[in-house]
């Protein structure tokens, strides 16, 4: 039997104005188990707390009921008070007689009656309270960043700067991501490579950072602070530690006609290649689908020219297992496929390109060495049409494209148009827009400059279709403001394709038990207040994997994610919430119902030996809750058919006792 003390707070006149506090404390004194009951002006004040501590000592109390304001307000305060008095902090229950009683009712009689019932419910609950201690788990002081684009690089750099070890896993042969493919960046027009490549070098030289390029994550086990991750290092048939990146093999390779992924297939690369000059790690990679030596065993030229002896045709995929305390997802984005948009003739004409391809065409390191030339005939285009919102802002029932706004297209199109007019003032540039969305620092000014200073023709309307005719592209579009249908004989059409999360994100989310929205973007723990954390503890989000973002936004989110990771790694031990689910193994029948409803993947099943009544032992499959991962929602408690699962602090018997007390 508990020895319960009841403390009724007046809260000045806030409670005492509508509730007869004396009557409440008198009425509750007669409840079973209550050995002490009093009221005081301000329970949360120092004097009030001292009163509680003294009462606990004097009357040997084991449980406390505080009739006061909302537990959301002062539950933590009174738990600390209980601890000070030598009680377990979870032996406190609060009856909310302010927000849910005195403030909503006007008559003293009604308020007092309700306050007594609420107090009785709290007493009934505290009878069944048990001391709870939060679980502790150690933290592995190493972080994993999945994706080596600007988001991953920035996150890794910030974590490494704080003195923690970081590993970057990148599926391509080099880090750098999409930003490495860009030409200039809006709204300042500084060159992407000039600001990105120093960061790539920084991250490669940072002694706290390891880069696993050409690798992918294949398995994730464990939980916050203690992830066990398997990384598959794909065979690149070149010894990474020996290769100097001199490029002799690349020059000599006879298999030269393979589409160059880095230039989006607009030119060719050899079977052995380094994606671009500033690649990190600057190491050659052999494409096994193109290499004659790997396919047919004939050639071996690269091995002969390699003075360092780095080529190894027998290399195998390697699996690395490592422990991590935190995981940052930075898997980024890709432009969507244009296959479903026949009206723009993307698959019919080489001169219809996406914006990312345009980016490569204007890049000094691109297939045309920075000269803006038509992919079909290498001529200088005189009329360029930019089409915005291709595949963005589509209705779900249209079954092609994405429902969301891709956010970056308005700005990069303005950039492309401006740069074109700047380099080639004789070019006519048309931009077809639905809305021009430029919220951002110096963004609208930038767009206005494109219109006012560079004379880009912005036309409100959408392109209906593009028809190749001779060496021209006939663009048929509407000009809504002039109420006209236009036909433009363009030389080049640039489509601002919508962006979508990388295809690797979905299987990764499954491995991490992190949730995703219908568009395969990772969901954040709270859309406003916890934007860089996944609801799964220990998993953080950086960059476009969470939603479309431009570079400044990506970098700030990357640093924010790093700050959260550092905040986690700096702890030696993680203290959990003690109000979590736990299963009664004797009752558990191993049905997996709870495992299926758990949003955090906190429940696992183990085979355990049990002693049977006839002194034999039997193996049974029972549920176990990982206290570090469980957040205490209680979904499993209701799903459990055998009643084995219960929630500490909100157990079925406690809630039932409250129901009974209220209904008495």
């Amino acid at each position: 039997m508990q020895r319960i003390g009841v403390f009724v707070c007046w809260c000045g006149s806030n409670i005492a104005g509508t509730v007869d506090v004396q009557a409440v404390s008198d009425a509750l004194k007669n409840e079973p188990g209550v050995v002490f009951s009093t009221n005081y002006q301000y329970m949360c004040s120092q004097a009030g707390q001292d009163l509680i501590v003294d009462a606990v000592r004097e009357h040997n109390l084991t449980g406390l009921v505080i009739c006061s304001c909302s537990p959301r307000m002062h539950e933590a305060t009174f738990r600390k008070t209980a601890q000070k008095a030598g009680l377990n902090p979870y032996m406190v229950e609060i009856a909310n007689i302010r927000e849910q009683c005195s403030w909503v009712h006007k008559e003293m009689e009604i308020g007092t009656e309700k306050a007594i019932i609420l107090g009785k419910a709290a007493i009934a609950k505290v009878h069944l309270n048990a001391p709870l201690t939060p679980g502790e788990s150690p933290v592995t002081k190493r972080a994993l960043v999945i994706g080596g684009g600007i988001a991953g690089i920035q996150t890794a750099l910030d974590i490494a700067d704080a003195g923690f070890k970081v590993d970057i896993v990148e599926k391509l042969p080099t880090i750098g991501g999409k930003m490495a493919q860009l030409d200039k960046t809006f709204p300042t027009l500084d060159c992407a490579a000039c600001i990105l490549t120093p960061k790539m070098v920084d991250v490669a030289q940072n002694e706290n950072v390891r880069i696993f390029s050409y690798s992918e994550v294949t398995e994730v086990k464990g939980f916050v602070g203690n992830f066990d991750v398997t990384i598959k290092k794909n065979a690149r048939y070149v010894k990474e530690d020996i290769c100097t990146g001199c490029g002799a093999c690349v020059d000599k390779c006879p298999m030269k006609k393979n589409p160059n992924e880095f230039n989006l297939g607009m030119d060719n690369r050899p079977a052995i290649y380094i994606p671009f000059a500033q690649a990190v790690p600057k190491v050659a990679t052999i494409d096994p689908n193109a290499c004659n030596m790997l396919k047919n065993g004939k050639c071996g030229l690269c091995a002969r020219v390699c003075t360092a002896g780095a080529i190894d045709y027998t290399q195998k995929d390697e699996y690395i297992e490592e422990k991590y305390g935190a995981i940052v997802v930075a898997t980024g984005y890709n432009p969507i496929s244009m296959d479903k948009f026949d009206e723009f003739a993307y698959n019919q004409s080489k001169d219809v390109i996406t914006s990312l391809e345009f980016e490569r065409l204007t890049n000094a390191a691109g297939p045309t060495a920075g000269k803006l030339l038509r992919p079909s005939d290498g001529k200088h285009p005189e009329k360029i049409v930019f089409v915005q919102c291709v595949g963005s802002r589509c209705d779900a029932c249209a079954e092609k494209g994405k429902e969301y706004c891709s956010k970056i297209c308005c700005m990069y199109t303005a950039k492309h148009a401006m740069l074109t007019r700047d380099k080639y003032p004789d070019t006519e540039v048309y931009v077809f827009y639905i809305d021009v969305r430029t919220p951002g620092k110096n963004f609208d000014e930038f767009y206005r400059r494109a219109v006012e200073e560079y004379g880009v023709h912005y036309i409100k309307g959408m392109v209906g279709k593009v028809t190749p005719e001779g060496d021209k592209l006939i663009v048929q579009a509407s000009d809504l403001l002039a109420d006209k249908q236009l036909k433009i004989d363009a030389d080049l059409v640039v489509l601002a394709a919508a962006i979508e999360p990388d295809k690797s994100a979905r299987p990764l989310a499954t491995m991490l038990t992190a949730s995703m929205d219908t568009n395969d973007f990772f969901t954040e723990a709270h859309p406003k207040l916890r934007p860089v954390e996944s609801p799964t503890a220990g998993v953080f989000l950086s960059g476009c994997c969470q939603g479309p973002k431009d570079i400044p936004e990506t970098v700030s989110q990357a640093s924010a994610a790093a700050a959260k990771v550092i905040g986690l790694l700096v702890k030696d031990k993680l203290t959990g919430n003690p109000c979590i689910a736990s299963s009664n193994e004797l009752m558990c029948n191993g049905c997996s119902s709870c495992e299926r409803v758990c949003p955090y993947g906190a429940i696992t099943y183990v085979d355990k030996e049990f002693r049977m009544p006839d002194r034999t032992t039997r193996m049974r499959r029972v549920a176990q809750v990982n206290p570090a991962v469980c957040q205490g929602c209680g979904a499993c408690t209701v799903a459990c058919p055998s009643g084995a699962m219960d929630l500490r602090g909100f157990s079925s018997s406690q809630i039932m006792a409250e129901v009974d007390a209220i209904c008495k």
Partner: protein
Amino acid sequence: MQVKEYKPLIVAFCCNWCSYAGADLAGNNRLNYPADVKIIRVPCSCRVNPMFILRAFQRGADGVILCGCHPGDCHYTSGNYFTRRRMALLFSMLDFLGIERERTRVEWVSAAEGAKFAATMNDFVATVTALGENKRLEDLRCKK
């Protein structure tokens, strides 16, 4: 002789993160709703076992209302979806038992919707008052 006015007994389950905070906000804004509503705090609406609701009816409650975060806003990401399904099942069971459908209700109240909380409670109490006492499910053995 004065006839005692009928006062229904209403049990409200509120999730800690949205609806309980919404109820607090109703209090902060001094919005009135009948004292017949007694709130029980649960971590998430999905913690509410349909059994608790039946228990309340058994013990003589006249109405039970369950409040959670709006779908998609659950603090635990998916808890209220479970609630929605479980309650749909409970409703059809109560229907089958011949208990008035209006006695149980599921309502989504966010932490910012103090006004909605008060309005919902006023409406629910009015509905249950019109229905009168719950006699079908009440277990007389539980009466003192």
